């Protein structure tokens, strides 16, 4: 009788321990899931951090400088007396260098993408694609060196009276750096177009290039658009190439032969100096940064929307 009871007690004990064990397992799983969720949410925390700091300091900036001044004054001379806080020269510098860069990267990148997607043999594609991606792996300071000491003298030989640092030189080198951004995504978009569509064109007697331009390219516009926007965004945010080779003079100009200063180059220049924390000069970099952030945010969202559309299409 006692033996049976003990046996029963042991069994109950064992069962309870197992349940506790299972409970602990559940608890552990819960803790892990919460931890992982926190990690995922950290990305939102980072964005909030960026937005918070940029807005906080910019609010302080705009207490002293009016919005009209900021957007419409044609001079950016925060450290002069009297100081001017018009962002237009910085914006024109950014947009002009971006424009030059895109003039290089979009045609070269698109033609490369069409070639790799529609013409090249598979082994060529396998070989060339990683090599092209190396272009974007080179540190931008090295591109800056290249721009200032190799490309600039070359350009000065071609174009008379060209200053050593100008938007043209910096823009061209930036364009070369951006080619893989454009070509890689465009090529992916074109390869995603089903073969059946191409066969329809070939069966009518079309050659490869006609098929590529009139059938494949239009079918892939969303993805190609996303690629272009990616290149654009990257160009707007580029710092070191323009800081080294673009000329550090804030000048409102649409002539690429002029030196200029981009929003990013200004921030770098100021950071190297010794502006006291809280001074208006210090706050200018955050106002500039906010402008930059908003620009790239808009373009990134457009690019994201386009990418979603191309993914859904096929």
């Amino acid at each position, binding site marked *: 009788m006692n033996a049976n009871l003990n046996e029963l007690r042991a069994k109950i004990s064992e069962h309870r321990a197992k349940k506790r064990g299972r409970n602990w397992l559940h608890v552990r799983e819960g803790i892990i899931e919460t931890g992982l969720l926190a990690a995922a949410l950290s990305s939102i925390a980072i964005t909030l951090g960026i937005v918070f700091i940029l807005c906080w300091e910019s609010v302080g900036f705009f207490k002293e400088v009016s919005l009209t001044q900021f957007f419409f004054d044609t001079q950016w001379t925060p450290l002069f007396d009297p100081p001017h806080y018009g962002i237009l020269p910085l914006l024109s510098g950014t947009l002009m260098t971006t424009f030059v860069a895109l003039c290089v990267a979009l045609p070269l990148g698109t033609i490369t993408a069409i070639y790799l997607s529609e013409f090249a043999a598979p082994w060529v594609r396998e070989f060339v694609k990683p090599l092209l991606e190396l272009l974007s792996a080179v540190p931008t300071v090295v591109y800056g060196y290249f721009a200032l000491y190799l490309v600039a003298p070359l350009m000065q030989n071609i174009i008379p009276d060209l200053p050593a640092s100008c938007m043209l030189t910096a823009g061209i080198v930036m364009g070369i750096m951006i080619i893989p951004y454009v070509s890689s995504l465009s090529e992916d978009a074109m390869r995603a177009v089903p073969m*059946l569509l191409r066969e329809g064109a070939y069966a*009518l*007697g079309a*050659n490869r290039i006609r098929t590529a331009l009139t059938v494949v390219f*239009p079918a892939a516009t969303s993805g190609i658009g996303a690629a272009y926007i990616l290149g654009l965004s990257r160009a707007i945010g580029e710092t070191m190439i323009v800081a080294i080779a673009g000329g550090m003079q804030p000048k409102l100009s649409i002539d690429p032969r002029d030196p200029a200063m981009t929003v990013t180059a200004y921030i770098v220049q100021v950071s190297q100096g010794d502006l006291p924390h809280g001074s208006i000069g210090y706050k200018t970099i955050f106002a500039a940064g906010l402008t930059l952030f908003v620009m790239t945010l808009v373009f990134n969202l457009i690019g994201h929307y386009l990418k979603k559309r191309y993914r859904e299409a096929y």
Partner: protein
Amino acid sequence: MVDATPSLKVQVRQLRVFYGENEAIKGVDIPVYANRITALIGPSGCGKTTLLRCFNRMHDFQKNVRYEGDIVLYPSEKNLLSRDVDPMEVRLLTGMVFQKPNPFPKSIFENVAFGLRLRGMSNRQELSERVEKALIGSALWDDVKDRLGRPATELSGGQQQRLCIARALATEPEVLLLDEPTSAMDPISTSRIEDVIFELKDRMTIVIVTHNMQQAARISDYTAFMYRGQLIEFRATEEIFQRPSEELTKSYLGGSFG
């Protein structure tokens, strides 16, 4: 009215197709008669689509493909498989409609006009006339005549396939090749497209691959039954369905395998 003695449009002679070491088509002889519909039937993998794609040299896009034999077009006596004949030339002479509709990302008008523009036609009036003629031929004109500028993707599946037929018709090919054109369609669309195909034979020579033997029985004049790369039997459709001479044909038509 069916002519008593149909003339020969294409003769497939001793055709062999090799994918690397694999012989996909093993010595096939088939006559294709003008203004008639010739159906290629057989179980999956028998080579009917492979055979069809020889007519417009679509295999040339793959590596490792080798042809032996001839496919001779009449009355020009041009051997479509000859190395001296450019594949592009062959495709300019033929038209193909695929298993799934594949309209280009363009307007309805531009889809049909694609082949015409390719051949150098640019006069708006001429193009409009040819496009209209092609769309009437594929029984799509009434559906789309008011919206020729709309994107082709707005059309339903059956309409898109008829658009693809119009696109192939517009260039007035010597032979129209149909690769299981209704396999992705519902029964109503299938029946409408079969009507279109049947009407077309008055002006066109048609070769159709189909996995649906009832379809072959319904619309074709001649049927070729293939199995594992070989031609088992080629007869007038009525004869092959009512009095098949080969055992294999009998089994297939009886539904023993598919």
